[in-house]
């Protein structure tokens, strides 16, 4: 170790540009005579370079929708698990099964209780997407149904809503708190979008009646049919959304009898 009487902290302050110009000049002069000390200061500065090289790419990453949504539309009530669910929607694509296992470790409530919130969040995150609202488009409807059925481990039929004025846009796989879930999106001629959120539980929860939830202008009808839970969300009045939910329920129930 050097015996030069420079306090180490002043050296760090030099490396970090914290000194006045007089002090800087003083230290610089001493460093010029002491290559070992100079190398040490250079090593500290090199650490900064390493940190920026490693972590600056984070600055350019697209923001997870969860973080955006949390700021733009903070939930009225405190829903920490909702925030977590939202986070996993964003991270799920990158982390796959890791995200799901962590989510299930964090989930501590009845999935049905959070269903409309999770659906509303998924709706809010994906509906504004212009270029990538879905992963698989309506032009590959058969593939979409087969793929989602395989991942959800349940036969998933894609409801048709042409009679209600909505065309299929497509669908995407999303994390739900019981594993893979699906989000199917529809659009009418005015560009209004509906989403049908589907998740499948390991156990059969019987059948429930429609329930209704509203968050600002977003309406959600949700129900459970055997192992599957559904939630239909849209920026529509309750009375306009109900017949669509009924149509979906009829089509799904016709194909998949409860139980």
């Amino acid at each position, binding site marked *: 170790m050097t015996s030069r009487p420079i306090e180490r902290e002043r050296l760090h*302050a030099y490396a970090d540009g914290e000194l006045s110009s007089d002090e800087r000049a003083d230290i610089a002069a001493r460093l010029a005579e002491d290559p070992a000390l100079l190398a040490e200061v250079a090593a500290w500065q090199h650490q900064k370079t390493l940190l920026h090289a*490693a*972590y600056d790419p984070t600055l350019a990453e697209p923001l997870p929708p969860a973080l955006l949504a949390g700021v733009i539309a903070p939930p009225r009530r405190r829903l920490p698990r909702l925030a977590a669910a939202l986070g996993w929607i964003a991270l799920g694509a990158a982390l796959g099964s890791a*995200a799901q296992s962590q989510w299930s470790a964090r989930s501590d409530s009845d999935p049905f209780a959070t269903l409309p919130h999770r659906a509303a969040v998924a709706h809010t995150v994906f509906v504004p997407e212009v270029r990538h609202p879905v992963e698989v488009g309506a032009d590959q409807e058969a593939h979409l149904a087969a793929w989602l059925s395989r991942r959800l481990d349940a036969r998933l039929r894609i409801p048709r809503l042409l009679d209600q004025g909505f065309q299929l846009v497509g669908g995407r796989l999303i994390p739900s708190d019981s594993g893979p879930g699906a989000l199917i999106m529809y659009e009418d001629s005015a560009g209004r979008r509906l989403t049908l959120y589907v998740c499948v539980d390991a156990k059969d929860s019987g059948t429930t009646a429609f329930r209704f939830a509203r968050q600002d202008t977003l309406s959600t009808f949700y129900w459970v049919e055997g192992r599957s839970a559904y939630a239909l969300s849209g920026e529509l009045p309750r009375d306009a959304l109900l017949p669509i939910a009924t149509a979906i329920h009829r089509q799904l129930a016709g194909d998949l009898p409860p139980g």
Partner: protein
Amino acid sequence: MPAEHAILAEIPRLRRYARALTGNPAEADDLVQDTLERALGKWALWRPGNLRAWLLTLMHNVFINQLRTRPALVSVDEGDLPEIPARPRQHDELEIRDLDRALARLPPEQREVLLLIGLEELSYEAAARVLGIPTGTVMSRLSRARERLRAILAGQDSPQRLKVIR
């Protein structure tokens, strides 16, 4: 609301700091999310000034709380880490992991000081305010942190993998 816009603009910086602090993208975004929740909850208490410093202060409090209440979260066996689906930035991932591991070996309070000054480029005084400690403590922690990081990086088998991009 201007508040939201101002906070939104700070998110990338918060994510970078959280990413380096936690060593893990998922934990980092959880930390950012918890920080933002706290910020929005306390927004009425914020007085116009340095928003970034205020958010970093909140993040420090959340981080310290997590260390206290969820110690299990910090210790992840490296062998258990899932493979992240391959992206074109495979090289960066490797390099980041090396630095992640080195930083993980610093005590959290040293890591915070090192990152606030070395990565976030805060002044000693600003870092002291964020962490709620005297400037002298910032300096002594910084000194120890750099010493230790240097030793860790020097002791690694392949420090040359830490390619410098700029």
